[in-house]
């Protein structure tokens, strides 16, 4: 238990340090000013969310292949955590957009595909509540999860393939893109901190799922008596 508390405190310190760096170490951007500091939280949360959905995708594939319940547990844990991160992306994005674009929201390719991604993983979790039988629930949700992941490359490519409202990528954006070195360092530190938080939350959520499986087994034993 103390080990978990220690890891939690370490993760919290990392996230706090990344916020400090975003406010006090990163230089102020010339055209957008202070509001650009949301970038370090907004984009890093998006990266962490996409990683969580990738974990979910791999777990779903492994469940379909091996039919072992722990892959289902990992899949649902990563989906919930990914959803929390993408919720933050969808909240911080409009807060950043209003002073810069003059509007909170527009149906451009990146925003729409991210919103669809959020809806797909909400549906993944809702689907699980509708099926009682554990093996059937695990298989159907794994298949749906594999389908839902198809939107992830679309979100990644949206600002590369179509030029709409959302800015072009500054990382992995090709020639002419890039960040000032201090901004880049602060951004990658934020990415690291939020990935640590994502891993911590997945482990916590996975333990909950393990407990649920144990309860199901004991319940079945009690009914058999």
């Amino acid at each position, binding site marked *: 238990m103390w080990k978990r508390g220690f890891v939690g405190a370490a993760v919290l310190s990392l996230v706090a340090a990344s916020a400090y760096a975003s406010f006090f170490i990163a230089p102020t951007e010339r055209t957008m*000013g202070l509001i650009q500091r949301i970038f370090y939280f907004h984009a890093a949360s998006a990266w962490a969310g996409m990683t969580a959905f990738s974990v979910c995708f791999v777990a779903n594939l492994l469940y379909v292949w091996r039919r072992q319940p722990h892959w289902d547990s990992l899949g649902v844990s990563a989906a919930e*955590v990914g959803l929390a991160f993408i919720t*933050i992306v969808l*909240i911080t994005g409009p*807060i950043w957009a*209003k002073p810069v674009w003059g509007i909170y929201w527009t149906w451009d390719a990146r925003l729409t595909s991210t919103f669809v991604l959020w809806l797909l993983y909400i549906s993944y979790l809702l689907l699980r509540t509708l099926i009682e039988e554990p093996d059937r629930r695990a298989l159907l949700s794994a298949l749906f999860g594999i389908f839902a992941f198809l939107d992830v490359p679309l979100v990644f490519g949206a600002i590369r393939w179509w030029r709409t409202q959302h800015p072009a990528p500054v990382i992995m954006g090709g020639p002419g893109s890039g960040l000032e070195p201090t901004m880049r360092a602060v951004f990658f530190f934020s990415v690291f901190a939020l990935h640590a938080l994502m891993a911590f939350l997945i482990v*916590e959520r996975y333990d*909950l799922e393990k407990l649920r499986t144990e309860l199901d087994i*004991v319940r079945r034993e*009690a009914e058999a008596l």
Partner: protein
Amino acid sequence: MKNLGSVFAAYVVGWAVFFAFYLTVARRTALLRQDLDRLKQSMKKGS
């Protein structure tokens, strides 16, 4: 200092989402643990 309030709002709302998510996981875990202990005890009494 233009837009400082918006930057703070974004960070505070973001942290609130993480905190709320962590709390729901901790609460659901505690409830499941209670159910499991109760069931195990009733099985012991029954046997």
